[in-house]
């Protein structure tokens, strides 16, 4: 089946697309229609979207076109740019479920701040993207609603938890999406799907209207085609929000200007730190080759390489699974069948003497509504928060977390950014890791410490690897980490890399236009 190429693909980035919409060279409605058409053609097989809001999207696009006709388009930095939203963010009047059965039918009465800001900038929300249930997972296989496949090879996972957000951009269903990142949930799927994705500094983007998983780690961020596109998106969605007490009360820097700034000038060279713990045992050597080549190409541009060490890296997964599950067990206690979502009411005979019908309703609702991984994490989190265990687990993990942040701070006295692999493994096959939760957790080894320290982190494509016996190349991602608040530096380095390479322009072969040259590395 020949899939049509959406209109957005003809433009060099979302700023150029928005410019063309504002100049009325193409209408927001045409752009939106072409994305909807491609979704209709391809998404049955891919499973990126949980819900496509065709009518709502066309209404938004018409409103954008009307504003432009009236000349009221000054603020529309993303005029007519189609976006997909991870199902973790509330969208007004559009069902939001965190890919969980427990939120079936929930229609939020308001937009998350990040979504509201996108809409105000003229972006068009196409629908809600697939994910692991409550963002708990690294493969998207924990979605309670439908599986999501990697567009480069549909027998493989897209990564997670923002699997739909990464796969939709990779498959050109939309040029931009929003994800959330608690332990790598934007960067790891970006790496596995060959797109660029960024987790900003904790507090940069408001979490208002974002379904809470682990509140001290969760952060919203964009996924797209290039660092420049992410810069444009972050400029729009970031900034202080009085509705989120952890949102940073700071002006945002000019991210787009940072992207144009060279990494080396006559006064100063960029210093790239290579943490030795991130190039250790367990890293696929084919991934290591691609990542080292990416770093070498920036070295050729004049960057200086510095060896650094982050000795507490080995503890990051343990810290993460204590903190994230503890916070999740508390956050997810709100799903009890009272105010929204699923309710399972016990029958008369099921309530024993001395039992409360209300409590029995809670227990049945939660057992029926949460999937196995979510229940496992609620149990672990509840256990580590129990009286007598709190100091040994949650408090100790939060203290070691401080030491992890100090490790990074020490490393950043020697360098401006760190560059590492994003994932130690290539996209794995569906089902391959499902039966062993701990092995799935270990896939996040390179992304988790960034959340613990609250750093800005970005993953971008840096190569393709074809496995023996396969004809399908699989993407490899390189991660750039910066000190807290240095989001602009991270984007600057990524943009510099993307000026001299074209890995971010590669598209999955199966989806290229018939007759056109197949993308080749």
């Amino acid at each position, binding site marked *: 089946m020949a899939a049509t190429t959406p209109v957005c693909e003809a433009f060099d980035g979302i700023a150029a697309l928005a410019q063309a919409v504002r100049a009325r060279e193409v209408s927001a409605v045409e752009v939106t229609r072409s994305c909807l058409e491609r979704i209709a053609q391809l998404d049955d097989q891919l499973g990126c979207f949980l819900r496509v809001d065709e009518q709502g999207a066309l209404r938004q696009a018409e409103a954008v076109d009307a504003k432009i006709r009236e000349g009221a388009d000054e603020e529309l930095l993303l005029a007519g740019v189609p976006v997909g939203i991870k199902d973790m963010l509330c969208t007004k009047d559009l069902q939001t479920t965190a890919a969980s059965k427990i939120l079936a039918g929930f*229609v939020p*009465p*308001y937009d998350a701040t990040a979504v509201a800001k996108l809409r105000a900038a003229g972006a068009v929300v196409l629908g809600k993207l697939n994910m692991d249930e409550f963002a708990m997972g690294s493969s998207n296989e924990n979605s309670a609603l439908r599986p999501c496949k990697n567009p480069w090879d549909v027998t493989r996972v897209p990564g997670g938890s923002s699997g739909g957000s990464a796969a939709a951009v990779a498959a050109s269903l939309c040029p931009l999406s929003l994800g959330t990142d608690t332990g790598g949930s934007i960067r790891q799927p970006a790496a596995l799907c060959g797109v660029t994705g960024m987790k900003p*500094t904790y*507090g940069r983007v408001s979490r208002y209207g974002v379904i809470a998983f682990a509140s001290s780690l969760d952060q919203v961020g964009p996924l797209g085609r290039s660092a420049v596109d992410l810069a444009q998106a972050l400029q729009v969605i970031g900034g202080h929000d*009085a509705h989120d007490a*952890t949102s940073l*009360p700071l002006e945002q820097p000019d991210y787009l200007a940072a992207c144009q700034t060279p990494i080396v000038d006559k006064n100063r060279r960029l210093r790239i730190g290579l943490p030795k713990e991130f190039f250790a045992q367990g890293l696929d050597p084919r991934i290591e080759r691609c990542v080292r080549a990416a770093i070498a190409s920036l070295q050729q541009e004049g960057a200086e390489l510095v060896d650094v060490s982050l000795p*507490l890296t080995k503890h990051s*997964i343990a810290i993460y*699974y*204590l903190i994230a599950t503890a916070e999740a067990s508390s956050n997810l206690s709100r799903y*009890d069948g*009272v*105010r*929204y*979502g699923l309710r399972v*009411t*016990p029958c*008369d005979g099921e*309530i*024993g*003497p*001395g039992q*409360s*019908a*209300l409590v*029995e309703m809670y*227990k049945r609702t*939660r*057992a029926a509504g*949460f999937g196995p991984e979510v*229940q*496992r994490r609620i*149990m*672990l989190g*509840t*256990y*580590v928060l*129990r009286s*007598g265990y709190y*100091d*040994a*687990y949650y*408090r*100790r*993990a*939060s*203290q*070691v*977390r*401080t*030491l992890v*942040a100090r490790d990074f701070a020490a490393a950043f006295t020697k360098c401006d950014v760190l560059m590492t692999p994003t994932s130690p493994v290539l996209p794995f096959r569906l089902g391959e890791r499902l039966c062993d*939760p*701990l092995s799935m957790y270990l896939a996040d080894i390179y992304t988790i410490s960034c959340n613990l*320290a*609250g*750093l800005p982190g970005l993953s971008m494509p840096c190569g393709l690897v074809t496995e023996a016996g396969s004809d399908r190349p699989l993407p490899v991602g390189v991660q750039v980490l910066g000190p*807290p608040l240095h989001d602009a530096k991270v984007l600057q380095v990524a943009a510099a890399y993307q000026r001299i390479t074209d890995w971010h322009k590669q598209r999955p072969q199966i989806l290229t236009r018939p007759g056109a040259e197949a993308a080749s590395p």
Partner: protein
Amino acid sequence: MSSHVMGQSNGHLISADEIRVTAELARLLLPESDIPKLSSELSAILAYAESLQEVDVAGVPPMTHAVPTQCPLRGDVAEAHDSTESAMRNAPASEASFFAVPAVFGGGAADDSFDGEG
């Protein structure tokens, strides 16, 4: 410190009883048949996390935010918010502007009807 938490670095198993109590606290109805599997999975993760006990954390404060910030205060002023109706729209059961739930104490009528009292 409870010896149950500390020390047993090998095969530190959470007992079936511990699993039952935790499930009760977590408000999860847990079939008996799920307990052995959950017990071994959680034990494996906690055994893995035992490595944190090696780290010297004396005098180290816990961390929750990357950028030291003060808890913001806002003025005590009334603001417009969504209507009660929109807040109630997603309720599985409601009467008037109340969320209706089964009986809080005892078995009672386990349906969702609101009896008009309380």
